[in-house]
Every structure is written in C-alpha cells, then in structure tokens.
C-alpha cells in the first residue's frame, strides 16, 4: 500500500527553473536584509535618541510587526496598497517591501541591543581624541556594533531566506512556488517536495557556513 515509485526525471527536466527559483529566493532574502538593516539602524538610533515620541513610534512599529503574521502583511501590502492608489509595485517589489519592513523590525531590536553593548569607554575615547558626533557614530560606534551583531544578522538572513517561501502565496516564482507547480502538473509529490526541502536545507546550511567564516574574520574578541 505504501509503495511509491520515484521518478526523478521531472526534477531534472525542470532543473534550470528550480535553480533560478532558488536564486530568486536568495536574492529576495539578501535584498530584504540589506534594506531591513538600513531600517533597523535608523530605528535603533531613533530608539536611543532623546525624543520620547520617536522612541514610542518606533516601539509601536516593532511590536506591530513582531505580533503580526508575515503572510497577512504580504497580502496587506500586495492587495491593500493598490486599493489605496499605490500601484507602483509589482509582486516581487511588493514582497521585498514587506519582507524588508518585517526584517527592519527584527533588526531594530538586534541593533538596539548591539548599541547598548558597546563599551562606554569606546565613545569616551572617541570624544577624547576630538571626533565629532557623526564621526564617533560612523568610525567607532557603527563598526563595533556590526561586529557585535554579526551572528544575529546571519541568523536573520537564514530565517529571511526561509520566509521567502511565503512569496509563493502571491505567485512569486520562487522555490516553493515551483515545487508546488511541479507537484500540481506532474503529481510527483515526493520528488517535488523532497528536492525543495533538500535545496532549502542545503542553502540554509551553506549560508550559515559562509557567514560563520565571515564571523570568524570579523568577530570581536570580548
């Protein structure tokens, strides 16, 4: 009863599409991470600033995003913005926008913790040698913060890469969407999902491995 004959031909026939889909997923994740990091840095600086209202606004943004399902946000941006008259985005751009906002909220927390863990003496030393406030941030605070937060950034990248699978819901042709199409067109259920799972798994670990090398190069010894 549980007999199943594997037929991997369908996978090999679709291989170029699958690779393209995988690369698209990685691209989506990296683009969102970069934009998310920018949002995150700005928000983290906003939260440690003296303005109460800024702190409060960013806090609500972060809490809102963190307590809302990503899929709902994706649908909201994809279907909601056009109704508000904003038709500038195609589905890939709209997905990147959503995932960036999502990543931004998480990165904000990461960077805030990073800022908080920078030893005070660094800033004082920078003051002592006469750096201006923006020079202090640019040459002392930011580089140190990046090194401290590097492990969290790599974790975020991996989880963002896994989250790109949700783009299938708005028909972005990434890996999950492609696997689902193979599944629907050929009924090769096992082959489609086994290869998708294996590719996600391999890519996640490859990303983790590469980032571990980067971390070893740049991490701070504390």
């Amino acid at each position, binding site marked *: 009863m549980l007999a199943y004959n594997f037929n991997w031909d369908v996978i090999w026939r679709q291989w170029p599409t699958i690779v393209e889909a995988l690369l698209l997923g990685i691209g989506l994740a990296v683009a969102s991470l970069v934009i998310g990091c920018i949002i995150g840095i700005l928000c983290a600086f906003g939260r440690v600033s003296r303005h109460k209202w800024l702190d409060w606004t960013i806090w609500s943004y972060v809490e809102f995003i963190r307590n809302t399902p990503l899929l*709902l946000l994706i649908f*909201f941006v994809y279907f909601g913005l056009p109704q508000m008259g904003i038709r500038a985005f195609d589905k890939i751009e709209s997905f990147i926008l959503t995932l960036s906002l999502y990543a931004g909220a998480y990165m904000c927390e990461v960077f805030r913790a990073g800022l908080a863990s920078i030893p005070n003496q660094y800033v004082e030393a920078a003051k002592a040698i006469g750096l201006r406030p923006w020079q202090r941030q640019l040459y002392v605070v930011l580089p140190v913060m990046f090194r401290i937060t590097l492990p969290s950034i790599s974790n975020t990248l991996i989880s963002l890469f896994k989250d790109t699978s949700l783009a299938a819901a708005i028909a972005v042709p990434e890996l999950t969407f492609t696997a689902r199409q193979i599944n629907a067109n050929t009924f090769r259920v096992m082959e489609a999902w086994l290869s998708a799972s294996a590719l996600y*798994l391999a890519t996640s670990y490859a990303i983790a491995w590469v980032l571990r090398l980067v971390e070893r190069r740049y991490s701070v010894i504390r």
Partner: protein
Amino acid sequence: MAERTFWTELWNAKWALLDGIAITTELSAYVVVASTILGLLGGLVLVYGWRPAALLVRLYVDVMRGIPVLVLILFWYYGLALFKINIPAFWAGVIALAGFATAHMSEIVRGAIQSVPAGQSEAAKAIGLRFWQRLRYVILPQATRRVLPPWVNTAVEMVKATTLLSIIGVVELLLATQQTIARNYMVIQFYLAATLLYFILNFAISRLGALLERRFAYMRY
C-alpha cells in the same frame, strides 16, 4: 438597500471571523501543547539520552530548522494524501506545525537544561537524589526560568504560523478574512481588522509570558 459601511460588513461577517479566531486558537493550542510535551522529551534526550537516540533527535532538529514551515505544511498535506491517508487539512496542518515547533522546543529545552550550572546537579548527586529526583526537584525548576522567554516567542511564532494553513484551505482567521474580502472588496479595512485581532492574541500571550517570568523570577542563582 442599506448603505454598505465597514461596520455593517463587519457585523455581517462576525460569525465567519469569530469561527476563524476559534480555529486559529484551537490550532495554536494543539500545536503549542503537543510541541511543548514532545520538545521536553526531545530536549531531555538531547542532553541525557542514549547516544544514538540523541544523534537522531539532533538530526531531526537540524533538518526541521533548515526547512521553511510552508514547505513542511505542503509536504505533509500532499504527502499524506498520496499514501491514501485521508485526514482533514486541519490535522495535516497541526502535524506539520507541531513537528516544526517540536524541533525548536527541543533546542530551547536543551539550552535551558545545559545553562543550569553543573554544581547544581553535582550537589543533588551528593545528597543522594536519583536521576528523576534530580530532574524533578533541581534541574527542571531552574531550567523553567530559562525556558520561558524563548517558549513564549515560539508560541507567538506558532500563532503566526497558523496563517500558513490558509494556503492548504484551513478556514482559520486569515482565510476567513480573505473570504470576507472576496465578498465585499474592503481589502484594507478587513486586513487591518485581522491584523488587530492577531496583534491582540499575540500581545496577550507575550503579556502572559511576562507575567509568568515575574512569577518565576525568585529562582535566581
């Protein structure tokens, strides 16, 4: 014909949305309870288990953590049908999500147990407690405090992940919302309403977690 405003539409859709909330809550409850129990077992095996068993759990955890939840859900959903195992999408979803969450919970429990200082376990051995007694009276109470924050995070993640089951046709809150929107085209209003409902649900869990954390905060070392 009466004017169609958001509020009248919301009133018309109230049962659909309430059912959606009920299904979402039910799904989350099953997933969180099952993954907590299994995760506790998994974590214990990872730390104290027989080597091959621990390796097996480790493999399971690492595989699960590298695959997107959506892929797991679709795999289970289509895979079970393939083998003529006819279970509703609801249960296929619970199995997939619980399987995923178990991996995370195991890792959380393992981390918490290992973060209890070795001296505690040694002291418990020194006063002659058996393995289960050490676990029950010394290790687990202290580990609970460490487990709580990530456990709450995972619970919130799972509530959020139940939305993915809308893709395989479980009419939880998101799909109920989408069906409502398909009827009245009030995209923004109803997605915002759903967002608010999820926010309330998750924020309540976070607050509850914070409350529990304070409750267990007396156990410091």
